[in-house]
């Protein structure tokens, strides 16, 4: 990626991160659409021999041999039996029955997590710069589990099975499904086994935001990653016939529009279809759009597909307007024709102009790449949101990382839009999603693993979460692009990842397999359900009182039941901190304190005299009666004056 290393402070702190032996020992497994091994992001210059712990393979298949692997890309496998059993044989004329990535997504995520340094990377000159993965010295192993027809869980489980056997340290999955109980969700079951082997599992939170309860991959042994923006934009202005200019974004590069205003038509007025405004396939009337710029509404079909529809109908350009579902979030695309995306408010303004002017005109001006956009990061509208629908007492997502307009490696088999009609080929592409934020965290976890090889997956997550930030440098709270207001822990979890701080968190909330088994007991899982996850008999002790709130998680989700007599009550959460810094005394603070809720930390001071010393504390939440659906948010911080160990708190009355 370009820009994200600087945005995350990795460039200034290069000497803090191990770049030699220990980093080269970390192996990141990426389960995705495969890999384009010829990408410069997988060049292995300067890398030492493959770690002796590695037991994996570079499998052969369509247009892929073991020679495609090297000291960077040390493994590549593919899993298609489940896919083929349901949808029939892989059509090898259309997709490679091998680890080769014909889509681009897998190459993008793998290069984001652990790609080598590539000078002069860009997409058509956009986002130009030195591209690198988060963990440039880590090794990559790619497991292809997604095909044209989807990603099937029998294949995903088989890939996780092999990845564990192969000896990977990090599992990165930028995919998800519906919301199922953990024992039914194959990613959750596979991740449990990986966690037991000390493998850090990072998964995308999903792109179903900004709706509440829209998260996927919420098991507490998974690190769930939402998406935020960078301080980078790709402005492309709409200039109207009334001399008003409005800002949008675009990655279009190609023939420019003629240097004059063109006729401008709303798609809804150039179609006989019910939803003509959406510019869906074969819905535009060519006579009404030929030679014009067309305004389309976002929704239902892919953004780039709408551009292709306008182009096929003879349109010269497109303005793509957000609707309420997306608000003011602007996602840039490498459209096939001159096009720009605008927010909902600007879209409405433009529509008013078009209604008022009998002969509306417009043109689009492309401005290239702009850096230093503030505020940044802001939570992406598409990033899935809490509360956690499976276990409301565990706060998810865990944190956010860059996931909007991310440049990274791409497949040589697909154009940047992914459309069949797109015959352009690029080395790098710019795309958005929690798919992009997840491998950022996977790569950063690899850096932390290299610096602290003895840390458990939960310890690594704790370091990432407790050091994440929730305010900008000016002290204001992180924003949510979908509302334009402060984001909450249901949107950003513990906050935006800060890898430099995560290297030295001071204190950790650690978790073992036994802790997770007690958590399953607290969920009242049956013996069979626990055996599915744990792969062994585990008997919950009937004399022990298990509580979900006792899971030593680095965040707090508290739920008051409004149907109870007083509609509030007292809820206690217990946590244990492990010192991984110098001896010190940490003091607790809670902010903000809200009316209707009292939060008490006991003890409020913890003194650690040596490394790995553990100290426990209890947080008591006393809530008064509140209407159902009330949410209050706060933050607990432990600080010794040098370290800040932060935990988000989400309190709901349901």
């Amino acid at each position: 990626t370009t820009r994200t290393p600087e945005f995350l402070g990795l460039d200034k702190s290069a000497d803090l991160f191990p770049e030699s032996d220990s980093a080269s020992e970390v192996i990141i497994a990426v389960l995705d659409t495969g890999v384009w091994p010829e990408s410069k992001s997988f060049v292995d210059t300067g890398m030492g021999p493959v770690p002796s712990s590695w037991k994996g393979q570079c499998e052969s298949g369509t247009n892929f041999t073991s020679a495609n692997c090297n000291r960077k890309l040390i493994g590549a496998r593919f899993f298609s039996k489940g896919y083929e059993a349901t949808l029939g044989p892989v059509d090898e004329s259309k997709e490679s029955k091998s680890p080769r990535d014909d889509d681009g997504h897998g190459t993008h995520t793998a290069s984001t997590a652990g790609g080598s340094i590539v000078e002069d990377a860009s997409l058509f000159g956009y986002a130009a710069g030195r591209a690198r993965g988060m963990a440039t010295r880590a090794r990559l192993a790619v497991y292809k589990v997604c095909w044209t027809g989807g990603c099937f869980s029998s294949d995903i489980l088989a890939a996780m099975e092999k990845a564990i056997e192969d000896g990977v340290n990090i599992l990165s999955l930028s995919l998800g499904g519906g919301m199922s109980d953990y024992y039914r969700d194959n990613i959750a079951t596979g991740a449990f086994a990986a966690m037991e082997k000390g493998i850090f599992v990072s998964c995308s939170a999903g792109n179903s935001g900004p709706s509440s309860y829209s998260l996927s991959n919420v098991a507490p042994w998974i690190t769930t990653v939402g998406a935020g923006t960078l301080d980078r934009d790709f402005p492309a202005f709409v200039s109207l016939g009334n001399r008003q200019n409005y800002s949008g974004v675009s990655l279009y590069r190609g023939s420019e529009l003629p240097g004059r205003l063109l006729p401008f038509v709303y798609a809804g007025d150039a179609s006989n279809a019910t939803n003509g405004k959406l510019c869906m396939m074969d819905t535009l009337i060519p006579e009404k759009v030929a030679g014009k710029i067309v305004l389309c509404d976002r929704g239902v079909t892919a953004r780039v597909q709408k551009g292709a529809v306008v182009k096929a109908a003879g349109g010269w350009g497109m303005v793509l307007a957000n609707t309420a579902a997306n608000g003011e979030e602007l996602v840039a695309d490498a459209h096939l024709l001159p096009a720009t995306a605008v927010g909902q408010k600007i879209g409405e303004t433009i529509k008013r102009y078009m209604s008022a002017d009998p002969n509306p005109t417009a043109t689009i001006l492309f401005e290239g790449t702009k850096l230093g956009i503030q505020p940044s990061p802001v939570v992406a509208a598409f990033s899935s949101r809490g509360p956690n629908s499976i276990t409301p007492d565990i706060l998810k997502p865990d944190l956010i990382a860059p996931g909007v307009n991310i440049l990274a490696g791409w497949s040589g088999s697909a154009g940047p839009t992914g459309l069949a009609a797109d015959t352009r080929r690029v080395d790098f592409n710019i795309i958005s999603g929690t798919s992009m934020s997840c491998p950022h965290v996977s790569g950063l976890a690899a850096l932390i693993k290299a610096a602290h090889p003895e840390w458990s997956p939960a310890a690594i997550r704790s370091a990432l979460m407790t050091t994440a930030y929730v305010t900008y440098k000016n002290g204001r709270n992180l924003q949510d692009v979908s509302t334009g207001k402060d984001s909450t822990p249901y949107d950003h979890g513990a906050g935006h990842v800060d890898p430099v701080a995560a290297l030295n968190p001071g204190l950790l909330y650690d978790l073992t397999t036994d802790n997770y088994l007690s958590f399953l007991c607290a969920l009242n899982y049956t013996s069979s359900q626990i055996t599915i996850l744990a792969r062994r008999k585990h008997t919950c002790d009937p004399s022990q009182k298990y509580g979900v709130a006792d899971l030593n998680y680095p965040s707090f989700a508290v739920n008051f039941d409004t149907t109870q007599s007083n509609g509030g009550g007292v809820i206690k959460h217990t946590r244990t901190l492990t010192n991984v810094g110098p001896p010190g005394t940490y003091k607790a603070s809670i902010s903000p304190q809200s009316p209707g809720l009292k939060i008490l930390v006991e003890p409020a001071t913890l003194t650690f005299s040596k490394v790995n010393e553990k100290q426990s504390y209890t947080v008591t939440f006393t809530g008064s009666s509140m209407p159902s659906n009330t949410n209050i948010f706060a933050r607990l911080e432990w600080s010794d004056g040098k370290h800040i160990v932060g935990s988000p708190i989400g309190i709901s009355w349901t």
Partner: protein
Amino acid sequence: GPEKETKSQRKTYIVHMSKSEMPAGFEQHTHWYQSSLKSASESAEMLYTYDNVVHGFSTRLTVKEAELLEGQPGILSVLPELRYELH
């Protein structure tokens, strides 16, 4: 014919086994899995066997076969496969 019809009615299931309940007569757990599967379906074949992530296997079954298999000793659950999507 009927075989084709059965094939089209089949769905993929993840079969979770309680490995500790493997009868003494079996030397390898995969043989036990195979035997359990055969007791529910003559023609079903395993797609994958799993040992690190879960104890069990994936296979294609009709709903009836899945129900029959679920009743066999040592079977924890027979869960339909899920389809995931890229984010």
